């Protein structure tokens, strides 16, 4: 585990830097507020639509595809590391796995889930 200690130090250092910058941002600089200024930016108009609306389902679909295909990628990493030792057996096994997911990709593609027009 000792090799993770430098990572921990690095994370602490990075977090400290970020927090220091945030503190600078909060405490230096003027603070003036009046209602017109505090409105969210809308090109000079008063906002008429709240951003907390429903959004296109396509973004949600992309998130689902991400989960599926990223898990595939995670399975591929350990296989790729020991690929040379596994030889032909590993090759055939993994090509079957990739093939199944490629069929999934083709299905998603043909159903039009990747269209954005």
């Amino acid at each position, binding site marked *: 585990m000792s*090799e*993770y200690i*430098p*990572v921990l*130090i*690095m*994370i602490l*250092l*990075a*977090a400290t*830097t*970020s*927090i220091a*910058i*945030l503190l*600078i*941002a909060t405490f*230096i*600089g*003027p*603070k*003036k507020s009046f*209602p017109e200024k*505090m*409105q*969210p*930016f*809308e*090109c000079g108009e008063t*906002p008429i*639509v*709240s*951003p*907390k609306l429903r*959004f*296109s389902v*396509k*973004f949600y679909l*992309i*998130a689902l*595809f*991400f989960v599926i*295909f*990223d898990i595939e*990628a995670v399975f*591929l*990493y350990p296989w*790729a*590391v020991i*690929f*040379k030792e596994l*030889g032909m057996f590993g*090759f055939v096994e*993994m*090509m079957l796995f*990739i093939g199944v997911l*490629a069929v999934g*990709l083709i299905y998603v593609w043909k159903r039009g889930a*990747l269209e*954005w027009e």
Partner: protein
Amino acid sequence: MIADLIETIAKILFVFGINMGFFSPILGWVERKQSAVMQDRVGANRADIMGYKAIGLFHPIADAIKVMVKEDFIPDGANKIFHTLAPFISLTCSIVTFAVVPFGGQYEIFGHKVNLVIANLDVGILFVFAFASLAPYGAVLAGWSSNNNWSFLGGMRASAQMLSYEVAMGFTIIGVIMVFGSLRLTDIGMMQEDFFRWGIFLQPVGFILFLTCAIAENKRIPFDMPEAESELVAGYFTEYSGMKFVMFWMGEFLEIVTISAIVTTLFFGAWHLPFITDADLVNFFSFAGQTGSNFLAILVNVATFLMKVIFFIWLQMTIRWTLPRFRYDQVMKLGWKMILPISLINIFITAVIILV
């Protein structure tokens, strides 16, 4: 034990210093100067100290002082905690990523083995991806918490785009791992000692795909749909001002550095000069004694690595000022319908070649 501690602290300070003290301020200037050169303008050259302009190199200092005294603006109805958390996530993650990138080989100084990487993790690349994939949280939280329509659209675009390209990026790298048989970035660097074993010769397609995905993941032009000045004002950081805005920018610039470093490590021989091994370097400097020769070799390694990184930063800057912005449907089409299938085919072809 004490020696280990000193070594670790020295390396952390070196990496941290070079990232925060050199790259992140200077890249703002580089970006402006690069655009000026490419657009036939004089460019950033106004800031001066006592009349010295130094081709505009004082602009980062002027900018830093300026943004520090700006007001930190949080609009009405915004979620204050998440509004503050978003730049924190962006910046912290991009600093931490550099912890696993090796910038030199293994040497011996005063009888103490020095390994020129902060954390020699056996899951190096996965660590990079883990922290790179925390970056969408920054963009999405910024967009969602600002209570602004532009920010919200920018955040949605950022999330979908970064998720798509993360998948593609994961696949493009697998060919490299298969060739080198390791996830440890130091091992991958070591194996590229021979010039003809550099990743670019073994995985040319993988290199192009990876660089494309990395730029898309970093939301730079031509993939800067989440920001898209002409459509979304400034995208997900419309409502940010002063230092918080700069934190997003620093995060982006540090990610450029990280991408360049990873590309160098995986595809361009890491810290190696062509045709010169680390042992050759130590022999060449043997006049300086045992410790001295190792030390000089370290300097050459680090300088080589930094030169390569700076080259790729320049390449990314040039791409950024050369290409126009894609449409959103084109970006998603490129990710899912081009890069993903090509990277799967790349894995297949690599596997066949290794077996045969």
